[in-house]
């Protein structure tokens, strides 16, 4: 359980975090979503005990980070932003160093092996970190974070700068880790949250603007149906299916957008309606409002 209560962090006049509160239950995979500079990293750094908040408190497993940072740090595996690693060490030496510092003395070899296997870096274990590709480095960073088998994983932008294949691999890895650990990850890439997390906390300008399970967030937002047809029937004829909006009209070619009321999917009825009225249907598709659009909607108000 991670509990954060009215957390604030000021850097001079800049309010990096401005009153954030949330609770993360065991086993959840939570995504911090927000544009760069929203306060995601600062919030994570406070939870990991790296920096102290100006106000408010953070508790990990009921332990106050400010008063017992060492205890908290034992329970957390952390992947910092940009994955800074010691370039001149080999992967093995680096992991051994982390294992030793984290107090795994006797069984460090077994822990290194397990973490390396979980992150798929066994084949590069003797290579110098400086010679590794970004994808491998990121995995070394993850291996470092899980080496002591912590119940909490905090990953700051785990997929930034990776190519699509590497991103998919890291996401799979996070998903696998999420089965037994509480994971908090931050990102400004929306599909990432959709694919890996079961809950999203949208942070914008140091505040939480949304906090809900992914499905619910999307459910609250309606979908639209675009219909393109050729025929004399005016667009208003479709008003039985929902709110109709004409996007384009060239002669008898219409492109309209229907926003249905409620949860239903009236695509089949629209098709039948077109057939019955002898309209030539050129296109009919539903557009799920993406998290992207939802995100834009949530953050727009703040900027205005």
């Amino acid at each position, binding site marked *: 359980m991670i509990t954060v209560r009215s957390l604030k962090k000021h850097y001079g006049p800049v309010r990096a975090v401005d009153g954030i509160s949330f609770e993360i239950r065991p086993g959840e995979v939570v995504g911090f979503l927000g544009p760069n500079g929203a306060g995601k990293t600062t919030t994570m*750094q406070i939870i990991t005990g790296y920096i102290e908040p100006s106000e408010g408190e953070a508790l990990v497993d009921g332990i106050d980070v400010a008063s017992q940072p060492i*205890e908290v*740090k034992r329970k957390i595996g952390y992947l*910092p932003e940009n994955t*800074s690693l010691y370039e001149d*060490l080999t992967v093995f030496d680096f992991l051994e*160093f*982390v294992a030793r510092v984290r107090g795994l003395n006797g069984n460090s070899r077994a822990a290194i092996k397990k973490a390396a296997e979980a992150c798929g870096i066994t084949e590069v274990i003797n290579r110098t970190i400086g010679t590794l590709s970004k994808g491998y480095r990121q995995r070394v960073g993850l291996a470092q974070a899980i080496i002591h088998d912590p119940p909490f994983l905090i990953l700051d932008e785990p997929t930034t700068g990776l190519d699509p294949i590497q991103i998919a691999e890291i996401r799979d890895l996070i998903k696998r880790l999420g089965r037994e650990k509480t994971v908090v990850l931050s990102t400004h890439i929306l599909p990432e949250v959709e694919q890996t997390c079961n809950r999203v906390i949208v942070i914008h300008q140091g505040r939480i603007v949304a906090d809900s399970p992914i499905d619910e967030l999307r459910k609250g937002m309606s979908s639209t149906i675009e219909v393109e047809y050729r025929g004399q029937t005016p667009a208003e004829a479709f008003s039985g299916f929902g709110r109709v909006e004409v996007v384009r009209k060239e002669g008898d070619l219409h492109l309209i957008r229907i926003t249905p009321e409620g949860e239903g999917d009236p695509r089949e009825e629209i098709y039948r309606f077109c057939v019955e009225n002898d309209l030539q249907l050129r296109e009919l598709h539903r557009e799920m409002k993406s998290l992207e659009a939802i995100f834009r909607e949530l953050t727009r108000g703040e900027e205005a």
Partner: protein
Amino acid sequence: MIAALVKKELRHYFFSPLAYVVISIFLAITGWFFTSSLFIIKESELRGMMEIMPLVLMFFMPAVTMKSLAEERKLDTIQLLLTMPIREWQIVLSKYLSAVILYGVTLLFSLFYPLLLKIIGRPDSGVIFSSYLGLFLLGCSYIAIGIFASALTSNQVIAFISGFSIIFGVFMLSRLQMILPVRFQTAIEKFSIVSHFDNMTRGIISTTDIVYFILLNILFLTAATYLLYTRRGR
């Protein structure tokens, strides 16, 4: 835990050319002053070498320590360290100990000179011992100052220059004596690193001198720890 940290630091020193460059150049410089006093003055003593040591180490120690904390901050690996269950003082201490070990190894190599004296002449073993103890404590103090300077910044060049300047300041206290009124002279002498070192090169081992060096080390290491603590996340 500290052992793991020290091991990592030593790896940085000895798996890179740094340690070997330091050891060989140190031996070359000390060798020069050793042989010149041996062959020119024809005395079997380390005086000539010892006189120059505060100046030689003034360049060496900031160079050895400039990377220690500045680099961790620059590469942001400090974040990795400080989110592991360790304290700031443990990080500072491990940086200090590893540089002290490198310096100790260097001094061991330089023992060749007094051993040579033993073979060809009859030097005063007591003076040699106290000189080496003084040399060790002097170097340790410079290391502590160098680590403090490295905690000030993420830029290694700035760390070097500030480390050098602080050591130079502490060193110059002894030169200041000459131009100050008499009543300040004794006070200055108490704080001058050179006067404490000079006592030891003359074969005097006093508690005052040793306590002075220990306090100087603690002072700068504590200050470095404080800087590391207050400047997290900047």
